[in-house]
């Protein structure tokens, strides 16, 4: 029977793959001999990537975990070593065919509005994720194989999937699939956006859009992932500080106690400052990459894509942009992702780039060094919102490397909304992005041809890659119920992607968190690589 033992096997495998992934230690700065102090307020400075709504099921924003974790708990939690541990579910069983998941729920959990956590509540949440009215950009895709659920008794829910889906348990540990109050979902689901009600260590207090969110302690909290009992902090506040320099200076001035997204340029200064502490965690998923639109010329030609990949000195760019804080990506999954395979084959090789372009027919060169074929210039358009200075830097340096190889990249400055629309329509050649998730299924989301945006459905296959062999591999890995077999298929898929070169994987973006030494007990949400506060206290 494939039951908990499967889970344990997966866990063991995960542990094996994850031991190599570096900075996994929680960012705890244990000071002095005094124990945790109760009370007080902690202020976090976050970047301006503010969610438009606080219903986690409606979000795909990077900061969802940081902003939502205080309010919401998940069914499972992911450990530092990748193991899935009980949280709101106390146990689970998977049927041999991988189609039925039976969850046993934790007792005694109450939401902030007093409603009880039971099988009905879990079912309501799963239904809410996929309800068309929720317009879920992420949770719905993550539980796409969900068919229906049967309430066996108050504490037991039997979830049926339409097809086996190996990543199901992993994604359930992510904050995008966290559990909302059943009362709220039944009575007024739309209100979750503005007044989210969960079961987490903090109760939502107020949200001043464009400025920040405040939370207060949930005194009844006794089901924390690492500790029973309510949070030490009386209040928690998250402030959105757009400018890198402003955020860093706010920490220096003591206006905030912790900052997320520490500017890479300031990390050295933080480390050298005795009043500050620094910590980081590698995020799982797809590395930060330069996406190439394979749906139109010039990047519809795989040789041109391979050429650009080889023309770019990724290490030089990443080192200069991050001041050595980021590690260069080794493939299409970051090392902290389950089933990551180190395939190599992304070496900087300008000679090979030139050879590939010659082979693709771009032999002649114009006066400015840009290659020409049949009177047409080898030119591509990149979209940049200018919001993130590091992204612009990466584009500019990629542009310079491409120009040396004879590929012209024009950078267009567009507002975020336009960028998102044009990317969905395929009206671009180059863009940059990252996809953080705790399963290799990210490859299916990003590269399966079924996820290309059509007029009916918005998919997340930005590069519009359409490869039968890869589709088959990703579907098989998805349906695999055998962990070792799945890892092998994902290994093949990653190797195939290196050949198809739909993107240039650049770096594994870590979470860079800096804090005042007064702050203790910061923890991580390992399913996403985000800082959490349920055990934090201020001395």
């Amino acid at each position, binding site marked *: 029977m494939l039951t908990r033992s499967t889970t344990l096997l997966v866990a063991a495998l995960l542990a094996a793959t994850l031991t190599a992934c570096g900075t996994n230690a929680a960012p705890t700065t244990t000071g002095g001999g005094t124990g945790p102090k109760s009370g007080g307020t902690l202020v976090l400075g976050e970047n301006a990537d503010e969610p438009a709504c606080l219903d986690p099921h409606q979000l795909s924003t990077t900061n969802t975990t940081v902003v939502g974790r205080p309010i919401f708990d998940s069914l499972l939690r992911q450990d530092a070593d990748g193991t899935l541990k009980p949280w709101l579910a106390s146990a689970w069983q998977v049927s041999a065919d991988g189609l039925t998941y039976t969850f046993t729920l934790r007792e005694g959990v109450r939401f902030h509005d007093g409603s009880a956590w039971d099988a009905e509540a879990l079912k309501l949440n799963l239904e809410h994720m996929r309800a068309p009215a929720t317009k879920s950009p992420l949770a719905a895709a993550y539980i796409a194989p969900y068919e229906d659920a049967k309430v066996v008794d108050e504490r037991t829910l039997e979830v049926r999937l339409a097809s086996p889906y190996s990543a199901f348990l992993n994604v359930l540990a992510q904050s995008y699939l966290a559990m909302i109050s059943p009362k709220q979902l039944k009575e007024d689901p739309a209100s979750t956006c503005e007044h989210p009600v969960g079961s987490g260590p903090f109760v939502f207090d107020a949200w001043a859009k464009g400025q920040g969110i405040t939370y207060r302690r949930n005194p009844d909290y006794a089901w924390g992932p690492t500790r029973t009992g309510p949070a030490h902090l009386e209040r928690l506040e998250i402030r959105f500080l757009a400018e890198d320099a402003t955020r860093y200076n706010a920490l220096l001035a003591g206006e905030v106690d912790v900052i997320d997204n520490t500017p890479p340029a300031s990390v050295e200064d933080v480390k050298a400052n005795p009043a500050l502490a620094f910590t980081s965690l590698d995020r799982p998923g797809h590395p930060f990459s330069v996406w190439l639109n394979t749906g139109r010329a010039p990047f519809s030609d795989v040789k041109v894509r391979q050429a650009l990949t080889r023309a770019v000195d990724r290490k030089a760019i990443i080192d200069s942009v991050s001041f050595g804080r980021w590690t260069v990506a080794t493939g299409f999954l970051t090392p902290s992702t389950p089933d990551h395979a180190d395939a190599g084959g992304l070496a900087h090789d300008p000679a090979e780039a030139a050879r590939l372009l010659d082979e693709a027919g771009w032999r002649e060169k114009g006066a400015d060094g840009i290659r020409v074929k049949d009177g047409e210039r080898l030119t591509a358009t990149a979209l940049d919102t200018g919001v993130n200075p590091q992204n612009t830097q990466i*584009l500019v340096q990629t542009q310079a490397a491409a120009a040396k190889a004879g590929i012209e990249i024009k950078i267009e400055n567009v507002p975020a909304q336009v960028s998102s629309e044009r990317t969905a329509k395929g009206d671009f050649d180059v863009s940059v992005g990252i996809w953080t998730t705790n399963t290799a299924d990210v490859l299916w989301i990003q590269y399966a041809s079924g996820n290309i945006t059509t007029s009916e459905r918005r998919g997340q296959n930005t590069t519009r890659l359409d490869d039968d062999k890869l589709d088959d591999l990703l579907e098989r890995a998805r349906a695999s119920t055998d962990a070792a077999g799945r890892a092998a298929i994902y290994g093949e898929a990653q190797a195939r992607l290196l050949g198809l070169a739909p993107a240039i994987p650049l770096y594994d973006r870590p979470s860079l968190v800096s804090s005042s030494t007064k702050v203790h007990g910061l923890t991580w949400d390992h399913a996403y690589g985000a800082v959490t506060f349920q055990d934090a206290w201020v001395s």
Partner: protein
Amino acid sequence: MKRAGVYAAAAVLAVLVLAALAPELFTAQDPLAVDSGGTLRPPSAGHPLGTDENGRDVLARIVHGTRTSLLLGFGAVAVALVFGGLLGLAAGLGNRLVEGVVMRLSDVGMAFPELLLALVVITVAGGGTSNAVLAIGVAGIPNYARLVRAQTLAIRRSGYVEAAHALGLSAPRVILRHVLPNAVKPVLVLATVGVGTALVAGSALSFLGLGTPPPEPEWGSMLSTARNFISRAWWYGVFPGAAITLTVISVTVVGRALRLRSEGRAW
């Protein structure tokens, strides 16, 4: 003593114009040459003003950015001056309906801060240098339209215009020979001040990422990017900032001198 300042300002402007026309005279370096291994280097013999976050020569980028930055300043004023002037003239000389329409439109335009109006134009037309020029220019139109109209009204009722009419001169001739030349002086004064403001506005648009797209050098966008590295690389922000300041001061000083001179006062 005062004149020395004016001459110095004029000299700065001459150098700027020369840099805009022939940047190669001032630097041999390529403003677009990226060097990932040599980013944010302090001033040295090889890079007199240091390098930026992409290892590009800051001096070369300032020099090569002169053309775009001046174009933003002077181009935007030219747009505002021409269209504002024509509208103001029409309002001043036309019938009630024309005057009403032009003035109410300019009221609406003036109700918005100039930069906000420019942002609206950019949002509709898209980013880029030429659109930035257009955007800042359009935002400045109401000011010029008002000034020219007020001047036109005053001149229209003046004795010499009445005399010209009495002499039987045609309306276009009266407008071109008598009204326009006399209305233009205060407008030119506004324009010299305007060049400075437009340059700063252009820098602000680039600063917001809506002006000149990368990798083209432009002072405002340089300053904008530099602020992220200010604690590590002071040279990156200080020099483009100094270039903007120096230009605005020079234009203002020269503009003031020209105005005083046109009024027959000592400068």
